[in-house]
């Protein structure tokens, strides 16, 4: 099998969607709001792409001997522009990731089970049974 990378990515997309279907239907409705927050946070995974745009070194015209440069002018300008765009994208995604997980954690910390039996309002019913 010598399938292309594109085809394998399609496989991942389809299997990922199937997994998403099952896992999301399994979420209890009581936690649908935290679900929105956490999926929001993990959609910040775009940071991976952002890092790959911000990170590469800026190459000079000399590299055009090996690369298929289309134009020699503005070579540095466009690379720097890409880096700035990448930097902004990294920052935006990071807001999402840190903010999203923090708010999810904040919400989830509030969900507590019945703890102190003294305050247990079903006591009366149980006593009767």
């Amino acid at each position, binding site marked *: 099998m010598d399938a292309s990378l594109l085809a394998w990515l399609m496989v991942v997309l389809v299997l990922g969607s199937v997994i998403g279907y099952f896992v999301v239907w399994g979420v209890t409705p009581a936690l649908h709001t935290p679900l929105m927050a956490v999926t929001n946070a993990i959609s910040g995974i775009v940071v991976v792409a952002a890092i790959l745009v911000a990170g590469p070194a800026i190459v000079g015209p000399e590299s055009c001997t090996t*690369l298929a440069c289309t134009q020699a002018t503005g070579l540095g300008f466009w690379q720097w522009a890409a880096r700035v765009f990448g930097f902004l994208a990294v920052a935006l995604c990071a807001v999402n990731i840190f903010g999203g997980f923090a708010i999810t954690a904040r919400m989830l910390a509030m969900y507590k089970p019945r703890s102190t039996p003294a305050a247990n309002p079903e006591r009366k019913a149980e006593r009767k049974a």
Partner: protein
Amino acid sequence: MNLLGPDLTLMLGLLAGVLCVVGLQGLSHPTTARRGNLCAMLGVGLAVVLALLHPSVQAYGWVLAGLAVGAAVGIPLARRTPLTALPQLVAMFHSLVGLAAGLVAVGMFMRHDVLDVLQTKETLEMGVGAAIGLITLTGSVLAALKLQGVVSGTPWRWVGRHWLNLGLAVGLVLMCAVFVATHSGWALALICLLALVLGVTVVAPIGGADMPVVVSMLNSYSGWAAAATGFMLEQPLLVLVGALVGVSGAILSYVMCHAMQRSFVSVILGGFGSAGTEAAAVGTTDGGKAPQLAGVEDVAYRLSEAERVIVVPGYGMAVAQAQHAVKSLMVTLGERHVEVLFAIHPVAGRMPGHMNVLLAEADIPYDMVLELDDVNPRFAEADVVLILGANDVVNPAAQTHKGSPIYGMPVLEAWHAKQVYVVKRSHRPGYAGVDNPLFTMDNCALVLGDAKDVVEKIGTALKAA
């Protein structure tokens, strides 16, 4: 550094993706949810580390600076935002992902256009990524502004808006085709522009009350945008996680629309919750019988006599921020050995799980909070049902009135209880704009007033009794 070969990178990326799945799976129960959140964090953290180890990445300073800036902005934001503003905050966050996806697509173009000969496949992915990302951006910003009330929540309707949107969408597809054919930067710029405009024109005609569905839909878009960048940068992890998020948003939109008995298309095209339908609905009021009214003392008395009480919170509780008052009432009742339960409808409030978060915020244990199917058989045994600012979700017309817009929607059958009290401020209808026959039933009485006020007063009266 190229410490990891491509195979190891793929395996570790897979691990990161699976950690995200395990994280979401944790949300299947409150007891495992916190662990789930940690898992998801680990997954995304691993993804960031893998990206940093990518052989082409060299400008660590820029990347780390970006991460630091994001953390410095995001964490305080998450700490300080009041939970009531959550829908807006989530919408804002989506807009950031959308913008990031757009920036990535354009940045990729800038870099590769000068250094490589672009391939058709790449340009297609860039066009799609930029389009989805930027629609998400402006759509989410507008949704957030509507939810925050900065922009009026009433739908903006103009003649021919469906045609305008259609035209913009067709234009977008055409420009993508031009971009793929010519690889011209101008085409990409036009794609961006069209996408930005389309985001606004799609969301503007939708009423503020329908925003939760829109936010969920945009959540889905942000996932697909992530998947598109994954294709562009050949990162399977982005594709996997993007698909998870995309499906999640789609399912939540479906859940909301389904519980409201409306088609997704009708929500997105607008036309509900608008002034027009509301007037029509009010016009259909039979008005024959006026609802009974009750005072705070009556309620306190009945509660003091009761053995089993069920509280049904709704949107009004959120508006009045009455959850803490409700908690103290619960404690007071508990001291008197009254059994209290909470009944939550899947679409009570304005976003999925809205009431659950509010009750959790007020420290009400989640095992006292029951869902529709579990609680409906229990209403018959309840002595008092206290409805706090809920309306549509307890409307018996959903079962009896074939013509009603909410006909067929499963509802909380509060009317089976011995006595029902409804706390609301007026005789106005709820979100769906339809009359509620429950209010005129013999075993039901309205308690007019702000939910927080009324609940506090009931608590005081009960303590005095």
